[in-house]
């Protein structure tokens, strides 16, 4: 049985994939972060979002 967290994560990624602002590579990275089992860290997210811009933000 999928947990509530998993259900929300799946729907979140699905909805995000429909957004024009977010590319596939970002969705893929987010999926990895969410499936990792560890607590999400803001700095990890900043890296992912920064990479989606092709930039070098850290």
């Amino acid at each position: 049985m999928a947990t509530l967290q998993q259900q929300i994560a799946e729907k979140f990624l699905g909805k995000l994939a429909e957004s024009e602002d977010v590319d596939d590579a970002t969705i893929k990275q987010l999926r990895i972060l969410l499936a990792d089992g560890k607590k999400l860290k803001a700095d990890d997210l900043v890296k992912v979002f920064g990479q989606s811009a092709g930039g070098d933000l850290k």
Partner: protein
Amino acid sequence: MIKLESAHIEEVRGIRKLDLIFNKEKFAISGPNGSGKSGVIDAIEFGLTGHIGRLTGKGTKGLSVSEHGPHVDKTKFPDAAFVILRVFLTGLGKSVTITRKLTSPNKPKIEPADEDVKAVLAEFADHPEITLSRREILRFILVEPTTRSEEIQTILKLDEIGQTRSALNTAQNKLQSAHKTTTAQVDAARSSLQLHLQIAPLRAEELLEAVNKRRTVLDLSAIAELTADTKLDTGLLSTVKAFDFNKESALRDLKALAGAREGFPDFARTEATAVIADLARLEADPALLRALQRRSFIEKGLDFVDGPECPLCDTPWQNEQHLRDHLKMKLAKSEEAKQLQQSLLSNGLAIAEQAIRVASLLTPVQKLADARGEILFAQVLAAWKAELEALETKLATVDGITGLTDRLKGDWLEMPKAFPQQLKALTSKLEALPDQAATLDAQTFLTTAQLRLVDYREAMRKNEAANIALTVAKAAHETYCAVLEGELNTLYEEVQQDFSTFYRAINEEDESTFTAKLTPSEGSLGLEVNFYERGLFPPAAYHSEGHQDGMGVCLYLALMKRLFGGQFTFALLDDVVMSVDAGHRYQFCKLLKTYFPDTQFIITTHDRLWAEQMKSAGLVTAKTSIAFHSWTIDTGPLVESNLEIWDEIGAALGKGKVEAAAAALRHHLEYVSRHLADQIGASPQFRADGNYELGELLPSVLKRMKELCGKAADAAQSWGKDADKDTAGKRKTVLSTSNAAMSVEQWAVNKAVHYNEWANFGKKDFEPVVAAFKELLRCFSCETCESWLYVTPHGNPESLRCACNAINLNLKQKPK
């Protein structure tokens, strides 16, 4: 997920040694307060999860499983304290044994230690909410909406979701700050380019016009279109490019810096004043300062939590969740500090933007000084720039800002003392130089323009990247919040429906139209309940405390159903059923049987009557229930069992301990007579305090049962059911003729005859008394299922029955 087959408990809490067989069935444990029931719950909870809920949480400071889990006489020998559970894993179809010692709660011995077994048990151990105690019930009902939201979010394990949302929000905020910084850098680079080109606004046509004017002087072809690859100085020889500066442009840079210098004292003065005021508040309020420092410290700590050990002080916690809750509670207490934190960071960012602006004005002048051999001035400017960049970093954190009090009070830019003089000197030197030849002016104009265009493009690229990252972060945060809200609304709707259904099931007689409404909003969860169709009100507005307790149990069951779904197979209800008032107990049993047929509830109650009602209602049987009659520190719980009471009395008599046997018999009769008085509707003389003596209850019970047997015999005859007539008649005869019955009759007429005299009997005198009461009590129970008989319906009985229906005597005669 799991069901309990058996438990062996040694030296845990108040228990010395105890074996219990659960057989994966619903199970009831009854006994007076202090008889050791909760000790069993503690031991089972410990065996399954490694934790004991009663020793953790609010109001348990100074208590711990390792110190206070073992029996008080074994605190120096905690190795003697352990629990062995035989558990059936429903999903895997396997039975496993868990041995857990109080000395090593996190290292259970599991047999077989298969990976799938360990995974299931580990997941289960992460659910402390399998245990619900009476004192916890009202945490769902009589609390502020914000607290209820936290309680329910905890039980539904929504903290992880909240953590994800919080991380997305923090990432968005960080990227917002990064975007503001890059925007300031773009502004500075644009100003620098415009200053050099002497155009405003910065448009391609104007830019090309200024550039082509110089290119014409140099006989270079005009640039028709400005593209991403366009080089303004294309065509210039590399030796020409080595020329150091353009005099006119350099003078403009110097002038711009000098002009800006006039305004330095006012740069970000409003924001700096606000920061000083905030810092003064902190200085005047040490508690606020501590809260702010702690907040910053805890926020960092929360980021690093990754297990049950505190990353700040290495203190081991029961589990990661306890640690996180503790840290979050501390953060929640510092709301004032939070507002101050936001104010400091916002003003800090504004000041940093001004620092970036000044640094951008210093850059060309530093290059110029360097090129003109003004090494000292170049070094001063380089050091100042580095200082401003360091300041920018400090202004990004509260810790950094709190160290800037003195600096922000005055010249926070910390302009070097020699700077005005050196600037003036360099300007004079430059002005004294002869004007550059037209070709040199054009060449240096183009090279400088190209350098500044590159800087501007780079700043734009970074800003665009920051903007894209921020856009994605915003989309992610907003999408997550929307999905979360939708899912939680669905979840709360389901919980609301189940809660209403369960509550109606318990109170079907008087609140069959009951409904409830859960209203989630940001950080809170409102609860209103219908009161006799007069509208929705808070639970405590009109409902009695008993009803509020009932709501607590129903909300708990609704939440557990949602949390576990079809895997809600096990729960420990410690004295929770006492919350259900006497008039609704059968319905409560029905609720558990009907809606949770596959859930094994281990239920404790200090009301022995309640325990018997659970049997009568078929929720448990004699084999799946146990009663403690008392407890001593040396023995632990003393088990009273209908099945074994006569063996215990016999054993006491065998040892010549008449006093102990008499006490056991008396105790048993007190309990049975009280229970039967309720079960069959006896009518002892009413006592307002409910404190009935055995001598008052037992005669009325005897009289009532004879009356019922008589009615049953008459009814059977009217329907022509000879077998039923015979059964009822025989019971009535035994009730009338047994020696015990004669003694009971004597109590009724002669109060001088008292059971206390039994203690003075000899063994031979007392054995017939025991035999007589054993025979008498058989008339009140079923030989097949061993449950006590009861009448139904309670007020106006139509039949006399047992739990298994082997006895079902009609009390209503055939109409004539």
